[in-house]
C-alpha cells in the first residue's frame, strides 16, 4: 500500500497537459489566496486581541476597497473562464480525420466496436498518436465514459449519441471508469484503455474476424429492406443516402439540419420526427427492431457512403482541409 501512493494521475493524452496546466495555475492561485487571507486574519487576530482599555475603532467601510475587491476578482475569474473555455472547445471539437469507435454502454459493461469491425468488452485498444472519436450510446440508464489519464469524460445517454475524442500519447494501460451512477455494480463498470505503439496495434488489429462495421451495416441495409426505398440513384421512395452524411438536409417543415450521427440514428428509430423535404413520412419505425450494435453498423454504413472509395481515404485525410465537396 505504502509503496504505491501516487498523488497525481498519469497523463497520456494530448489533453492532459492542457488540463494539468490550468489545474496547477488554479491550485497556485488558491494557495496564494488562502494563505493570504489566513495570514491577514491571523495577523488581525493577534494584533487586535481584546485588551483592557483598548476599544475597537468604528469603521463603516470603503467604497474604493469594495470596488477593488469586486472588480479585480471578476477580471481574474474571466481569465480563468476563458482559459477553461479554450480547453473545453478543444475537447468538444474532434479532428475531422479521427478514427471512429462505437461504444454501447449497459448495466454494467462497456461494449466497444471499432469501425474496422474489431469488438471488445470493457477494453479499448488504441494506437499512440491517432485521433480517436468515440460515438457512444446506452442501452439502459445514463453512464459516463471516463478515462482519468486522458482527462476526458462524457455522459452516455440512452436514445441518442454523445461523442468524445482523444489522442493518446503514451503506451500503457489506463483506467476506464463509469462516472455516472448507474445502479448496483456502478463501481464494477470499469475497464482498461490499452494504448499501444503503432506496430503492436496493427498486430492486435490483424487478429480480428469478420468485416468492417460498414460492411455489416451494408448487409443489414439489404436484409432489412432499406435498400428498396433508399436507392443509390435517387429514384426511390426515400431519399438517396449517398453523400448525405455531414451535409445539411432541408426538411419538410423548412428547417435545415445537419445529417450527423444523431440525425441518422433518429431517422432510423423514429423516421417521422424530421422528414426530408419532398418525401412522404412512410418509413416504418425501427425502434425495437434493431439493436444498438446494428444501429451503429447502419450509421457506419451511411457514413461510408459519403467517403471516397477505399484506398484514396488516407490520401484525402492527409491533404489539409479539402473544402471542394
Amino acid at each position, binding site marked *: 500500500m*505504502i509503496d504505491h*501512493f*501516487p*498523488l*497525481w*494521475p498519469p497523463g497520456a493524452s494530448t489533453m492532459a497537459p492542457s*488540463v494539468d496546466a490550468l*489545474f496547477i495555475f*488554479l491550485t497556485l*492561485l488558491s494557495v496564494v*489566496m*488562502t494563505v493570504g*487571507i*489566513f495570514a491577514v*486574519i491571523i495577523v*488581525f*487576530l493577534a494584533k*487586535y486581541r*481584546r485588551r483592557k482599555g*483598548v*476599544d*475597537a475603532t*468604528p*469603521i*463603516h*467601510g*470603503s467604497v474604493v*476597497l*469594495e470596488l477593488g475587491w*469586486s472588480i479585480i*476578482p*471578476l477580471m481574474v*475569474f474571466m481569465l*480563468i*473562464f476563458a*482559459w477553461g*473555455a479554450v*480547453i*473545453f472547445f478543444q*475537447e468538444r471539437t474532434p479532428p475531422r480525420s479521427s478514427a471512429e469507435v462505437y461504444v454501447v454502454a449497459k448495466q454494467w459493461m462497456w461494449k466497444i466496436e471499432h469501425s474496422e469491425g474489431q469488438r471488445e468488452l470493457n477494453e479499448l485498444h488504441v494506437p499512440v498518436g491517432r485521433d480517436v472519436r468515440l460515438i457512444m450510446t446506452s442501452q*439502459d*440508464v445514463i453512464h459516463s465514459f*471516463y478515462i*482519468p*489519464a486522458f*482527462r*476526458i*469524460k*462524457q455522459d452516455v*445517454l*440512452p*436514445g*441518442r449519441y454523445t461523442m468524445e475524442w482523444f489522442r493518446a500519447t503514451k503506451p500503457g494501460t489506463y483506467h476506464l471508469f463509469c*462516472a455516472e*451512477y*448507474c*445502479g*448496483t455494480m*456502478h463501481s*464494477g463498470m470499469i475497464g482498461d484503455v490499452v494504448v499501444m505503439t503503432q506496430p503492436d496495434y496493427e498486430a492486435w488489429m490483424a487478429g480480428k474476424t469478420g468485416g468492417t462495421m460498414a460492411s455489416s451495416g451494408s448487409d443489414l441495409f439489404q436484409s432489412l429492406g432499406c435498400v428498396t426505398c433508399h436507392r443509390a440513384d435517387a429514384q426511390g421512395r426515400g431519399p438517396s443516402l449517398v453523400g448525405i452524411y455531414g451535409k445539411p438536409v432541408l426538411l419538410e417543415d423548412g428547417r435545415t439540419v445537419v445529417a450527423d450521427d444523431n440525425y441518422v440514428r433518429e431517422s432510423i428509430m423514429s423516421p417521422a420526427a424530421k422528414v426530408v423535404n419532398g418525401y412522404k413520412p412512410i418509413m416504418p419505425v425501427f425502434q425495437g427492431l434493431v439493436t444498438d450494435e446494428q444501429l451503429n453498423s447502419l450509421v457506419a454504413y451511411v457514413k461510408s457512403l459519403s467517403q471516397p472509395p477505399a484506398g484514396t481515404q488516407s490520401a484525402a485525410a492527409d491533404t489539409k482541409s479539402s473544402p471542394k465537396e
Partner: protein
Amino acid sequence: MATAAVSAERETYLNKEYGIRSWLLTTDHKRIALLYLASITLFFFIGGFFALLIRLELLTPAGDLVLADTYNKLFTMHGQIMVFFFLIPSIPAVLGNFLVPMMIGAKDLALPRINLLSWYLYIAGGALMLYAMVEGGVDTGWTFYTPFSTAFSNTHVVEAGLAIFIAGFSSILTGLNFVVTIHRMRAPGMTWSRLPLFIWAHYATSIIQLLGTPVLAITLVLVVLERTLHLGIFDPNLGGDPLLFQHLFWFYSHPAVYIMILPAMGVVSEVLACFSRKRIFGYAAVAMSSIGIAVIGFIVWAHHMFVAGISLYAALVFSILSYLVAVPSAIKVFNWTATLYKGSISFATPMLYALGFIGLFTIGGLTGLFLAALGIDVHVTDTYFVIAHFHYIMVGGAVMGYMAGLHFWWPKITGRMYPEWWGRLAALIVFVGFNLTFFPQFILGYMGMPRRYWEYPPEFQILNVMSTAGSTILAVGYLLPMVYFMWSLRYGKVVGDNPWGAAGLEWKTSSPPPTFNFDETPEVTWEAYNYDQIPVPEEAWLE
C-alpha cells in the same frame, strides 16, 4: 418593578405552559424553533450515521463491509436526509424561526399557524422518509437521475420522492412567512438599512425557497408519475428526455446550496461583529451580495451538466455565469476579514466556529472556481473532487455557521451558558476532523476516483483511510456539543439578558424571552451593530 420581577419566577416562553399539548399546538415561533431543533438534530445523527458507514466501507478497496446495493442506499439516504431534512431547514427553521421576529422587533412571525403547519409538513415528510428507509431504502442517489429512478431502480423511489415533495412545502411556507414578516412586521424605526445582516441573508434565502422549491416539487411529481403510470417525460424509451430532468432538478438544487449557505453567512456576520466589537465592514455590500447570490444563483444550474450532453454554447454561458456568482461570495469574505481590522477581538466558541467558517468557505469557494472552469470540470466532475468541494461549502460552511449560531444564541434560547472550555475543544475537533476527512478527497478526485463507488482501485486507499480517520474525529466533534448542550440545560450557568454584550434587538429582551418577545414594542433609532455604544460585559467567558 425590579424587585417584583426577582421575587416571582419570571414568565418566559418556556415556562408559560407545560405539557406535550402546549408544545404540539403552539404557535409561538420560539417553541416551533425548538420543535425544529429537536427534529433536525435527530435527522442529522441519522444522516451522520450513514456517512460513517460509507466511510467505513471505503476503508478498504474491496466492497467488504456492506453489499453493493446497501452501499448505494447508504449514500442515497445520507444525501437525501442531510440535504432535505437537515441542511435546508437547519438555520432558517431553527435560528431563523427563533430570531427573525426578535431581530426586527416583532411579537411573532406574520403567520404563526402557517409556521406550525410547516413543522407538521416537515414531520410528515420526515416520517415518510423514515418509512421509505425501514421498508428497504432508496438507491437512486439523492439526485434521482432518470431514467434510472423511473424505470430501473427497484427501491422505494415513490415514497422518498413524495417525502421530499411534502417537506418541500414546509420550506416554501417558512420562506413565505419570513418574506411577509420582514416586509410587514418591522418595529418602528427598523428601516431596511438598519436590518441585521442575518435578516438580509434570510430574506434572500426565503426568496429562493419560494421560487425554487415548487420546481423541485413538480419535478418529483413527474418522476412519480413516470414511475407509476409510465408517462413519457424523462425516459427516452417512452419518448421522454433524461436531460430535461437534470435541468429541472438542478434549477432548484443549485439554488438550494444558497438556501444552506446564505443563512450561515448571516450568522457569521452577527458573530464576527459581536466578537470584534465592530460594525460589519461594508454593511451595504454584504447585504446586497446576499441578494446578488440569490438572483444570479438561479441562472447557473447547468454547471452541474457540463458533460451531461448539453451544447457547447450552453456550457460556455453557464460557465461564465458561475464565475459571476463567485464575485458576491468573494466580496463577503473580504468584508469579513476587514471587519477584524482594528477590532477588539475575543475568541469564544461562536467566534471560533465563525473563523472556521471563513477558512473552510474560502477553500470551498476557491475549489468552485476549478469546477466552473469547463476544461477542468470535464475531468473532475462526478469524482471525489466534487464531493470534497460541496462538503467544504455545506459542512465546512453551512454546518459551521449553524454551530456558531447555536452557541451564540444558546444563552438567549435557554437562559443558560454552555461550558465554554468544552465548546472550544469541540470547535477545534470539528475543524481538524473536517479537514482530515475532506481535504484528501480533492486529491482523490483529481486522480480520478469517481463518486458513488463501492469498490475502488487499490492506489486510492491511503487517501481513503485518511478520510475515514477524519470522519471518526468529526463524529466526536459533533457528539460533544450534543452532550454539553443537554448538560447545560440543567447545569449551565444562568446568564443575564445579554451575556456577550451584543447589539441587536434580540439581546434587549430577557433570556429566555417572554412569549411575545418584548414587553413593549421597541423603537429603533440606531444603526445595526452599534458596538461603539455597547460596553463589553465583564463576564468571565469573554476574557
